[in-house]
């Protein structure tokens, strides 16, 4: 069951309940205090009035009042005149005097003219006690006229023998109905305060909830829904100057950050797709099958640092007996380098088919690339032309690392030593200068010789400590090889050694290796 408890209920209802409880208890306390104080003051007043009148009443006049008809007598009026000021001054409801005869109490004189000898049926034990102990007593009873409480005080006289006796009782009373109505009025006011306070509390709580919590939270909710709906970067304007404003600021930061990350992610994905496309295009430029020429064993690999490579190689079958080998390295990385690489490979491939001389191929290629690649970019490349029947290699270089010639020493079974095929003349990479006349070197090869072309990614491979792989390690590696290695094996060994050297370090440059072995077939 998806039962949700609104925030209002969680926060405001306890507060409202607490508020109402506080008002209720306060009201009850005020009510109790006021009624108790009223009661205490009234008790004191009643006792004082009864006692004072009992001491000061004119007993001689009182004794003259004997029968009901005496209610119209001057004596009765005189006593009433004594009672009246006390009644008025003390603001009580009734003052009267009783007498007792044959264990029955009777009205004697009272402010309401109830009647002389009117039977008082409701004498309490306190009335009797006041007669006996001659002290004031608190009384409470309900008679035919109403419910009362008050005090009785004995009228004490001294007889000839000096003994004291009680002549009658003065009673001062409050009508309970009056007291109850007063208390009910007080209680009604308390209820009014309680209900009014409760209503105000509820209204205030609703307003507080709406303006301080509900509305900001709904704005946050709407903002979150906008964000969830794809409106990245959606922000919320909230000036509540509280934690909700902090929350809104955090939300805005999150939303802006999400938008930025999404844009970056989109851009990355787009670039990734472009790189994949470029990679695929680039891969199609590499020979899908190595040329099969009698007398030659060929192996080649281009291991790009990223999706696209600035390195490239090309193996061109030039007629039945000649092989053109291009190894190049474009300055820069990624897409620009790849695009220049495509251009360079295409240009060199085209020139290689048009010109037999490697130096001319590079010179023409340089002229074309200089005009068509961005300034500041260049292509280090070497172009070699193998002639199988004559076992000759004509090689021109445009800034590329010198290829390594591995000569077989048949007596030891090892390479007799690797040496680099050095070039002379201009060796600027392609695309830097408009017109360059490259020169070519011709090398005569022997069966078993292997020419290894490689780019700087081989010797500049780095291990985690930043050391370079270097020429020496490469030379040492190939010198230790048995001379009957195949070009595939040679490349495999070199790559394996580079991997061993680099360890966990990431490859940081393209690595291209082309190995051509003269088999003597």
């Amino acid at each position, binding site marked *: 069951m998806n039962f949700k408890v609104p925030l*209002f209920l969680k926060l405001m209802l306890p507060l409202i309940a607490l508020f109402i409880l506080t008002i209720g208890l306060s009201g009850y306390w005020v009510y109790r205090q006021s009624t108790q104080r009223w009661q205490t003051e009234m008790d004191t007043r009643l006792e004082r009035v009864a006692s004072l009148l009992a001491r000061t009443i004119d007993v001689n006049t009182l004794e003259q009042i004997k029968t009901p008809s005496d209610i119209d007598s001057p004596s009765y009026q005189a006593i009433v005149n004594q009672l009246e000021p006390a009644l008025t001054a003390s603001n009580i409801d009734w003052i009267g005097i009783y007498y007792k005869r044959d264990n029955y109490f009777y009205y004697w004189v009272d402010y309401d003219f109830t009647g002389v000898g009117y039977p008082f049926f409701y004498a309490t034990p306190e009335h009797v006690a006041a007669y006996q102990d001659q002290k004031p007593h608190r009384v409470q009873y309900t008679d035919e006229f109403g419910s009362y409480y008050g005090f009785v005080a004995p009228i004490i006289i001294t007889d000839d023998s000096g003994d004291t006796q009680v002549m009658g009782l003065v009673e001062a009373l409050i009508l309970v109905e009056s007291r109850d109505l007063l208390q009910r009025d007080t209680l009604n006011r308390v209820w009014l305060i309680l209900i009014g306070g409760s209503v105000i509390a509820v209204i205030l709580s609703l307003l507080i909830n709406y303006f301080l919590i509900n509305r900001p939270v709904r704005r946050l909710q709407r903002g979150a829904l906008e964000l969830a709906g794809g409106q990245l970067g959606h922000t919320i304007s909230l000036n509540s100057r509280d934690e909700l404003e902090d929350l809104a600021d955090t939300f805005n930061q999150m939303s802006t950050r999400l938008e930025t990350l999404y844009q970056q992610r989109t851009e990355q994905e787009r670039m990734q797709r472009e790189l994949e496309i470029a990679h695929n295009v680039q891969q199609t430029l590499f020979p899908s099958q190595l040329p099969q020429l009698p007398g030659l064993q060929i192996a080649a690999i281009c291991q790009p640092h990223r999706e696209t490579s600035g390195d490239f190689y090309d193996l061109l079958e030039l007629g039945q007996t000649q092989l053109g080998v291009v190894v190049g390295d474009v300055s820069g990385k990624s897409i620009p380098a790849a695009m220049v690489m495509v251009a360079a490979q295409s240009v060199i491939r085209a020139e290689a088919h048009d010109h037999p001389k490697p130096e001319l191929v590079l010179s023409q290629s340089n002229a074309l690339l200089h005009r068509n690649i961005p300034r500041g970019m260049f292509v280090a490349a070497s172009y070699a032309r193998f002639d199988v029947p004559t076992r000759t290699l004509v090689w021109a270089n445009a800034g590329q690392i010198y290829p390594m010639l591995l000569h077989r020493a048949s007596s030891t079974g090892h390479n007799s030593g690797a040496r680099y095929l050095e070039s002379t003349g201009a060796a600027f990479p392609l695309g830097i200068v408009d017109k360059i006349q490259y020169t070519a070197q011709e090398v005569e090869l022997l069966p078993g010789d292997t020419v290894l072309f490689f780019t700087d990614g081989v010797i500049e491979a780095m291990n985690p400590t930043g050391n370079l792989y270097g020429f020496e390690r490469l030379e040492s590696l190939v010198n230790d090889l048995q001379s009957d290695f195949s070009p595939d094996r040679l490349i495999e060994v070199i790559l394996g050694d580079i991997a061993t050297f680099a360890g966990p370090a990431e490859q940081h440059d393209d690595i291209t290796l082309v190995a051509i072995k003269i088999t003597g077939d």
Partner: protein
Amino acid sequence: MSHLHSLSQLGLLAWLLFLLTACSGQPVGLLRPNGVTIAPDDSIYVMDKGHNRVVHLSVGGQFLDAFGSLGRGQNDIFSGWDVALDQAGNVYLSNHIFDEEASYRSHDGIKVFSPSGQFLREIGGQDYRFDDSFHYTPYGLDIDQQGHLYVANFDSNSVRVFDVTGELITELFGQRGSDLGQFNGLSYVAVDNQRSLLYASDEANSRVQQFNLSLTDTGQLTATHRLSIGTYGQSVGQFSYPQDIAIDESSGRVYVADMGNRRIQVFDSEGEYLAEITQPHEWQVIGLAIGSDGAVYAVDALNNRILVFEPNGQLRRQIELGQ
């Protein structure tokens, strides 16, 4: 908000139910009952003064209904005294407030309720008690066959007569004293329709005065003193603070609650003493009424009960609620 709305409604409903339950609780018994009157079906209306209500009892004395509550408002009761029924069955009650100051802002006087206890009207309203010269304190009530309401006013020693609409027709007596036709605490009044007699209890003078009721040529209602019954004392035919008076119109017998002497005295319409009804224990007889079979209903305020006597004075039963 809908949750809150529902919650608020539930809270309000619970609160109203609580108030309804708390306010509908009725006291079990009677407390200082006072005036009493008998309906044509012999059901009983009694003023339960201590509980500020009128209680309606069945013929057998079972509780049927009650109405009224303490207050100074129009349909409240502060100090109910006597009750009477008109021919429509409406209930009249006299209500007064001892506190002079309070009575200025209170609804005293006569209040009229329907048989089911619905407030109908008041006679006198807020200014019933005070006049230029008198303080009117309504005590005893009676209604004659013409629907005239007779109200005994204790302090003014007068009887105010109202018509069925509550308009004052006339005011009788009003002289304080001990001469004939004068009163010293006129507390109860009763009309003998058969004989056109008016009885009024004269408390401090310890007597019951009987008057001939008649209409003048101009239609004015007059009361002419005919005789006085009793003097102060404890002997036969004497009174000590006589209270309510009940008339058995079939026989003309007059029943007087002789409260101070703890008895009911019976007289004939000529004021001759016939009998007395007593109890073996202390009791305070105030209200009196006669049933359709001549039974005498006497309210014992001290013991909070109604005693029902046969016409010959033999106790038939006693009605004590909650016993």
